[in-house]
């Protein structure tokens, strides 16, 4: 699972240590940025690269940095969001585990560009073993003069601290993360004010994902212009995709944006096709929060074009026939997967992780989970399906933070695309009580052979 830009050199033994990383061109970007460039030049370079937030929203990073309140006389902070807890997403963990110095390098350059002297890495509590790895990397960087006071003899000083969370998905939301970092209950804040003006301890703060910050180093080395040529359209650069589910080669892949989804699933250097010679049924392409898509809509858009791994192409057709790239947690389901059971599982997750602060999310996630539990266990009614759609609609957009949307989208999209399967569960309660996988296949099997490639999908 080698890589092109972010994961470059990951196969080199000992790359986790400073010496090997340095010997392979590590920290050259820091030297270039701090010695040859001004802070605003670094910012411009990132802006030129077209880098978009890799945490899920895909917001242009350069633009986000430009919002930072630079007039305020308060200290500024950069917070690295390493609270990666989305089901299906495990790219940041992989990057931090094997290439911690790439992240540290990105953090130093980004902090320099933002004029930040204190930087925090908020890491998920379950990633306890990564805390040691990151702290070792920070210590090594400090010993070699890349961190601490007067880095590389310049006037710039920076300290990085690692802060483990306590095991809450909601703390991946940037304002909940800041609350948690301040030592409070991880409830998302009400926006406005945005963190760029009032963030950590009421000071201007930028919160970025691990992958976004790690990409800053390579961007400085190769130049924003060059980076923006990789990829396709407004989706520039490379993206880490963590592929899992019923595929032959699960793992983390660094892909160039614009790779067709079909190639990603079936090419031997990526997922390598569906395991056990089964057929593709559905894909959740961006972590559990994004809408699920059936195979035909996943491989080709509603307009008949090939669907590509870009922010735009995956969102083509909006929520009716599209989905989102999200954080890149690529979950593949084969023909045996039971969509109802899967949706119930996700609803259970969101119910468990809702912070309970605002009423639509607190009550709605629990309600959806209970109704889905009933349907999956053969106790459902036909009216429950429309009820779920209504509840999802009432949650969506009416909550403080995006967790409400994240909980509503999987349910709404599963019913939108797989309503038949939900109806099957209601009509055949005895069958679904005993069979927990792809029960609809028993009733009817509809395989659509693709004329071009000969690949059959469900």
């Amino acid at each position: 699972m080698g890589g092109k830009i972010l994961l470059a050199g990951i196969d080199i033994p000992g790359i986790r240590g400073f010496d090997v990383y340095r010997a392979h061109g590590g920290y050259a970007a820091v030297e270039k940025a701090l010695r040859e460039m001004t802070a605003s030049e670094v910012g411009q370079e990132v802006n030129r690269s077209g880098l978009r937030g890799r945490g899920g929203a895909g917001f242009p990073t350069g633009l986000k940095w430009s919002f930072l309140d630079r007039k305020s006389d308060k200290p500024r902070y950069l917070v690295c969001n390493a609270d990666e807890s989305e089901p299906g997403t495990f790219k940041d963990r992989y990057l931090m585990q094997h290439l911690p110095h790439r992240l540290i390098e990105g953090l130093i350059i980004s902090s320099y560009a933002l004029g930040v002297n204190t930087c925090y890495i908020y890491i998920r509590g379950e990633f306890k073993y990564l805390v040691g790895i990151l702290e070792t990397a920070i210590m090594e960087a400090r010993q070699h003069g890349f961190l601490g006071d007067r880095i590389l003899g310049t006037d710039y000083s920076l300290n990085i601290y690692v802060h483990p969370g306590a095991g809450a998905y909601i703390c991946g939301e940037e304002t909940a993360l800041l609350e948690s970092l301040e030592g409070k209950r991880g409830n998302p804040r009400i926006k406005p004010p945005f963190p760029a003006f009032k963030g950590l301890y009421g000071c201007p703060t930028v919160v970025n994902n691990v992958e976004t910050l790690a990409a800053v180093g390579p961007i400085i080395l190769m130049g924003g212009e060059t980076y923006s040529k990789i990829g396709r359209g407004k989706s520039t650069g490379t993206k880490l995709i963590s592929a899992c589910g019923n595929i032959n080669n699960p793992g983390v892949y660094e892909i160039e944006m614009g790779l067709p989804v079909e190639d990603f699933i079936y090419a031997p250097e990526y997922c390598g096709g569906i395991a056990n010679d089964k057929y593709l049924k559905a894909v959740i392409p961006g972590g559990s929060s994004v809408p699920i898509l059936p195979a035909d809509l996943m491989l080709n858009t509603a307009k008949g074009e090939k669907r590509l791994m870009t922010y735009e192409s995956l969102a083509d057709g909006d929520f009716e026939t599209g989905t989102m790239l999200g954080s890149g947690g690529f979950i593949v389901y084969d023909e045996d997967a039971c969509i109802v059971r899967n949706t119930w599982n996700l609803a259970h997750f969101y119910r468990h992780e809702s912070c309970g602060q605002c009423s639509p999310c607190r009550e709605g996630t629990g309600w959806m989970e209970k109704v889905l539990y009933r349907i999956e266990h053969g106790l459902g009614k036909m009216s429950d399906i429309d009820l779920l759609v209504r509840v999802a609609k009432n949650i969506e957009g009416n909550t403080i933070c995006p967790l409400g949307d994240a909980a509503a989208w999987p349910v709404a999209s599963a019913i939108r695309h797989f309503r038949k399967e939900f109806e099957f569960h209601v009509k055949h309660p005895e069958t679904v009580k005993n069979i927990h996988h792809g029960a609809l296949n028993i009733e009817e099997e509809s395989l659509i052979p693709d004329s071009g490639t000969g690949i059959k999908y469900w």
Partner: protein
Amino acid sequence: MKVTIDNVQVEVEDGTTILQAARKIGGKLVPPAMCYYSKLKGSGGKCRTCLVKVAQSSAKDPRPMPKLVASCSTPVQDGMVVQNLTSPEVIEARKGVVEFLLLNHPLDCPVCDQAGECDLQDLSFGYGMDETATEEDRREFPVIDIGENIKLHMNRCILCYRCVYTAGQLTDKRLHGVMYRGDVSEISTFIGNAVTNEFSGNVIDVCPVGALTDKTFRFKSRVWFLKPMNAHRECSKCAGKTAVWMFGNEIYRVTGRKDEFGEVEEFICNECRFEKKDVNDWIIEGPRHITRQSVISANHYEESKKQSVINPIEGTMEIQE
């Protein structure tokens, strides 16, 4: 700074929220608020009943906001156009929120002390559905005492966080807060601790539902049988300005004086609230005004300040302001 809410224009200061602007206009177009409390810093944004549609963000930027916004926490901008009752989308969303709030709220209004002065009752009357769509069990918690005089019915709680802010802002030590998360989160005190300080009773007044009730008043009387009177006394801890609720010549309970939006004018101390139940303790000023819509106004008459005059042309009776 000019802002238009439901086609009514109002001039407000910079930094005002949409809800405050609407309250300045008053009347029916004020969005309901279950969690926002103007006297508590940081409150609001949680219940989502005050959602409104911003049809025009400002005079400079005439685009509408993409989502409905919580009016209690969104500051107004010059030239903003807000739709509350005029937007069907808002009414739909609010109905949805009320349904969520009632999802786990027990139907025990007949035995609840808050009945008659409950914000959730008013809200359900305005936006609630006729029948429930859920068949799931409601969540249940034991009824506990938090402190000597306060009872907590967690079943009724809608997690507005008002009492948490009250406890955090009126007193030095944080005595209670929210435990757990999601739909099992609950208000509670630190293990076995009681809420004991001189202003703890105010959590009863700020509670929009019957989750926190006064143990000295529980099951004594329905609120609409009582007459609220303005009263005051010399108090060393608070201003001593309260509303006493009387039946005949007896004081049944003492609360803060609530304004038309259900917010107390001044927080009162526990001594005034729980201990002074004798008429001789108080200097009674006179009856409090109650809006005609309230159930408490039953059996409660007050002298009309308006004069009736005969219109000489039409020959009809008219009420003069």
